[in-house]
């Protein structure tokens, strides 16, 4: 009985983990290229959720179509914030970028609150369910999972096969060297920042399939914390590490929920949130460069 529940939850965990992974790739990409920690990360996920909600409720656009739209919105936001704010802070002390990204997150939350209000919302995209023996998986979640794997694969191809992707990689390796070789380093920074934000906002779309009525301007805070756990799990600067970190985290989160639920007199959901905080501290203590990344890089 418990075993069945656990294996069912683990499958759900893998599916959710794929979304977590994609939701964290943007954070890792931005840190890897610009060495900027986007503390307002969760707010961009929230923006994606609201874009999806609005497209679905107001225009009847399916969440699958919403993914590229959200990605475009994110790219736009990323470019705006890069050229108005981040660009000026690249040479400033780390404190400046930490506080600036934090403030950007707060600003986004307040703008969305101004437009949509602060109550919890959701939408219902009913496309059926699929039975997997130990658990029943709504098809919407399965699509989200496939979507995030697809996006991760596309990002991989983009990095390996395109000129712009190689330029970004060269900047990660050695920005001075890249500049000498004629790479437009500023452009690579802007592109990576926009791409990172685009990925994050698009992941907000996929995430809405998992939270039927959990869309709210302040929903991002919890995801910021999770994204950091995942990012350090996979090595903060590596988008692929982040993707696998997300899978691991999804499994741990759902597995621990089942186990916590066995303890009488506790609230298992709250304890999984506590666990993610403890995991963050423990990983940072043991190996801040990431448990899943081989070398120190």
């Amino acid at each position, binding site marked *: 009985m418990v075993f069945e529940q656990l294996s069912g939850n683990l499958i759900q965990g893998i599916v959710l983990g794929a979304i977590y992974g994609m939701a964290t790739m943007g954070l890792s990409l931005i840190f890897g290229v610009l060495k900027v920690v986007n503390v307002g990360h969760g707010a961009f996920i929230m923006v994606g959720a609201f874009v999806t909600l609005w497209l679905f409720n107001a225009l009847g656009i399916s969440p699958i179509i919403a993914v590229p739209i959200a990605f475009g919105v994110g790219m736009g936001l990323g470019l705006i914030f890069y050229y108005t704010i981040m660009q000026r802070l690249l040479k400033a002390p780390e404190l400046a970028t930490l506080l600036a990204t934090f403030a950007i997150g707060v*600003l986004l939350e307040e703008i969305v609150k101004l437009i949509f209000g602060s109550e919890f919302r959701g939408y219902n995209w009913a496309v059926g369910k699929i039975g997997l023996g130990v658990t029943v998986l709504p098809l919407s979640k399965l699509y989200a999972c496939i979507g995030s794997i697809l996006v991760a694969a596309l990002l991989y191809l983009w990095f390996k096969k395109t000129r712009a992707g190689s330029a970004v990689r060269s900047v990660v390796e050695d920005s001075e060297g890249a500049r000498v070789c004629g790479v437009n380093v500023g452009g690579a920074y802007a592109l990576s920042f926009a791409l990172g934000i685009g990925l994050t906002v698009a992941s907000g779309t996929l995430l809405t399939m998992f939270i039927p009525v959990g869309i709210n301007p302040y929903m991002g*805070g919890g995801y910021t*914390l999770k994204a950091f756990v995942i990012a350090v799990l996979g090595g903060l600067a590596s988008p692929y590490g982040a993707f696998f970190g997300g899978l691991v985290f999804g499994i741990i989160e759902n597995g621990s929920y089942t186990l916590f639920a066995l303890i009488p007199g506790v*609230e298992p959901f*709250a304890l999984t949130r506590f666990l993610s905080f403890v995991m963050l501290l423990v990983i*940072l203590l043991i190996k801040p460069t990431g448990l899943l990344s081989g070398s120190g890089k």
Partner: protein
Amino acid sequence: MKKQIAKYYPIIPVFAAYLVLFLIGRNVTGTWQLVAMLLFYCALGQAFNIFLGMTGYVDFGYVAFMGVGTYGMALSITRLANIEGLGAAVIAIGFLLALLMSTLLSLAVGAVALRLRGAYFAIATIGVNEGFRFLIEGARIWNGSEGLIFTAQLNQILGRETASALMTFWADIMVLIIAALAAFVTLFYMRSKIGYALTALREDEDAAKVMGINVTKFKIIAFVTSACFAGLVGAASWALKTPYVFPPEVFEIHYTIEAIIIVLLGGAGTLLGPVAGGLIYGISKYYLSIILPGFQLLIFAPIIILIIVLFPEGVIGMLKNRVKNSALARFII
């Protein structure tokens, strides 16, 4: 001897500001509530500045220390109310407990997180308040998500009249004392080896290390001191003014945001900055909440960004540069 005293001149404008605030609150009818709010923000800024200002590290989970401080006071009042003859000592024990709990939590977090540099440290702290909140709720510690309500116990310990005087007046005086104390400790640190070490590591941590400064030790000193004051502020301003504590309220990240705004507005690492920042923030928040209720942060978030991009030194930082070679320079740091 005179030189020793001269080192502490900069405390004069800070104390003068607090005295003026107090006098306004006492003598102009109807202003005490506003003054109390301003005192709270000054105290919050003064406490946060000891860490953010002096080390250049940012702690996104800072409110957790105020939260555990609030719990310290709440636990003392709820658990000791039925013991005869303790009387007002319960409050004193509450403050001690608040100190103890914020010290322990900050030592635990600091011991792990302060080994890490800048960005990694910030990441480690981002979940402290949420983590602690979910521990209390999840494991049902201290009444879990139902929180603690202790108005009755407070009345029982002190009598109805004293308790109400405590909530409406004396708690604010305690906040004032804590703010003044935090300012004094800030100046004391600035004028001692601790301050020099912290300045060195804030400017260049590697160089400081090479010079033989035990950077982790000094970061922990600043972190724990700052956390202790946060715990005291929580105990005085939250537990005693509003005798209840709910985990989602006292671990709300909102207060960390406010602390950051205040310190940045005033000027991180300056002594007078938190006072200036607290006053500017408190007064504008007070009026904004009348004009635009619920949307103060919509105004303040872009202000943080503007300060970071355009005026990273803050109000007092700019003033300090302006009065550099005048007689005022001795008083403003």
